[in-house]
């Protein structure tokens, strides 16, 4: 084969393409319609079975969703979340043996205001989705993103949830459910027609000002996703849902994994990309679509007519390098075209990540924005302390200046209340603005990109104030506490 004067004839190369066999590799009868992974061709019927089976398998394997549990599906209108919705419906309608046993509801967050859509466009999208949700028969909520400005402070708190269930609890719950009358399942949530919430223009402007204060598109996207998450969790909590299902696909999560590392969120990877995310304690975020590639979802939606509505995001039609997230996506997708195992390799890596348990429980140890454990303990030889040192070195100012700048800043943020305690209290502490001390590394970077911290929503600012006061108090009475008790509360 590999001789010096060998000629490779044209036909030899062309035969490569149709070698992906035209018969379905599974049933070997019907002609193939889809190529999944590298070289596995499935026919329509087998593809549908494969798709549906994968959804059940991922839920069954993880045993997190208990029978009769209320689960909120976060549907953005995009293909993955609409596919998730159709899979849940499919699962609820099956024969009793493999029927899904939880009680779903739907929530849609209207982000049109953040992206700059006209009111008319938003209304049309909301109406389209309303029709889709109505057809499912499940209870649904349509929430405009502007409501995030009115959230209570509890939105950023991690509430103690159900304690760690022992392995036997799931099986016991399922057996109990099967013995009792299991027919009360789906009818529990009645569909109520609530009129579409009126969005005040002033709120939309505040939201746009908030997002506009972020200097880079990267920071804007991060901020948007943080706000969206707060709103989703708050909605789930107030409507009594203990689980929140997100529709992130394998491709999306692979991109998220790499871009999270670039954004400094390495410590929170397990939370951001894992199947279950328990940072909020009582509301657990679940990602059942994480085994599906974007291609599989798109094909399924097309072949089996799953309705979905496209909404433009912040980075639609922007150049490749406009934000870290966008650049990472473009990189991964392009690499995937030449090396079809890229996404699955990244995904398999993310499966192995686990968050260290028990490192943070009390509210004081969590990031104010992303509610993950703080990773900013700058130990002597850590990478983080090196980052801090180099930052200080590159900001060489005269000593007089550095004392003055923080003073004016923190007085404006907390409205003078903290500084009324004695100006020496806050100004002689950290040289950085106090809000930074409450944030994890990547949230610090996001906030640093913002022109002013005052446009943050009230609930974030008041919670920040509360935490700063508490830590101030803790500092003051530290001298009076016995050793070992200083860490509690």
């Amino acid at each position, binding site marked *: 084969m590999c001789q010096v004067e060998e000629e490779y004839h044209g036909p030899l190369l*062309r035969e490569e*393409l*149709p070698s*992906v066999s*035209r018969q379905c590799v599974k049933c070997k009868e019907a002609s*193939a*319609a*889809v*190529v999944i992974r590298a070289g596995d*061709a499935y026919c329509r019927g087998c593809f549908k079975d494969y798709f549906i089976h994968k959804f059940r398998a991922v839920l069954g394997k993880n045993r997190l969703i208990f029978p009769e549990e209320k689960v909120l599906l976060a549907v953005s209108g995009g*293909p993955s979340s609409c596919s998730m919705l159709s899979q849940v419906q499919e699962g609820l309608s099956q024969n009793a043996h493999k029927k899904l046993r939880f009680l779903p509801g739907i929530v849609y967050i209207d982000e049109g205001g953040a992206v700059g859509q006209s009111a008319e466009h938003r209304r049309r999208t909301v109406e389209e989705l309303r029709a889709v949700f109505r057809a499912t028969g499940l209870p649904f909520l349509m929430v405009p993103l502007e409501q995030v400005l009115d959230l209570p402070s509890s939105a950023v708190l991690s509430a103690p949830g159900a304690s760690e269930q022992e392995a036997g609890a799931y099986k016991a719950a399922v057996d109990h459910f099967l013995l009792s009358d299991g027919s009360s399942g789906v009818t529990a949530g009645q569909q109520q027609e609530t009129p579409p919430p009126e969005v005040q223009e002033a709120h939309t402007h505040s939201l746009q000002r908030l997002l506009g204060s972020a200097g880079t598109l990267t920071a804007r996207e991060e901020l948007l996703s943080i706000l969206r998450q707060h709103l989703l969790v708050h909605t789930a909590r107030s409507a009594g849902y203990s689980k929140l299902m997100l529709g992130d696909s394998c*491709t*999306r999560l692979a*991109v998220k994994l790499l871009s999270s590392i670039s954004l400094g969120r390495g410590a929170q990877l397990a939370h951001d990309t894992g199947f279950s995310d328990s940072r909020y304690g009582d509301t657990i975020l679940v990602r059942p679509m994480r085994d599906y590639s*974007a*291609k599989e*979802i*798109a*094909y399924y939606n*097309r*072949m089996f007519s799953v309705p979905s509505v*496209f909404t*433009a*995001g912040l*980075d*639609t*039609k*922007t150049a490749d390098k406009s934000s870290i*997230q*966008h650049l990472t*996506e473009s990189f991964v*997708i*392009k690499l*995937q*075209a030449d090396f079809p195992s890229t996404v699955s390799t990244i995904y398999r890596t993310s499966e192995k990540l686990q968050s260290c348990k028990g490192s943070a429980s009390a509210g004081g140890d969590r990031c104010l924005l992303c509610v993950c454990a703080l990773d900013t303990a700058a130990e002597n030889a850590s990478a983080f302390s090196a980052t801090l040192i180099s930052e200080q070195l590159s900001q060489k100012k005269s000593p007089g200046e550095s004392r003055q700048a923080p003073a004016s800043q923190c007085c404006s943020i907390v409205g003078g209340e903290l500084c009324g305690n004695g100006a020496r209290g806050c100004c002689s502490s950290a040289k950085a603005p106090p809000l930074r001390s409450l944030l994890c590394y990547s949230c610090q970077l996001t906030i640093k990109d913002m022109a002013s911290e005052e446009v943050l929503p009230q609930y974030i600012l008041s919670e920040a104030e509360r935490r700063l006061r508490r830590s101030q108090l803790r500092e003051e009475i530290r001298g009076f506490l016995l050793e070992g008790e200083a860490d509690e509360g």
Partner: protein
Amino acid sequence: MAAPVVIHLEFGGGAELLFNGVKDHHVTLPSQPDPWDVKQLLVWIQQNLLKERPELFVQGDSVRPGILVLINDADWELMGELEYQLQDQDNVVFISTLHGG
């Protein structure tokens, strides 16, 4: 000497943004001596239908990575990708799987 070929084009997943938001296109490809193949179709689309930002749809000879192509509801990889020769009344669908359209 091929007759003009009538093709039904569809765009989804955000790709329609590059075509004025129109998802369905019924087009008639002019007759030419050689049969039309998908590579030539892409060139034709770029010249006649694409309203803006060609780099978001085509890359070199082929579609941008992340855009799926279905020919008559089957993966174009099974039909020969760019080499597939179009027939009258074929249905070609372009679905974007990218986050940003």
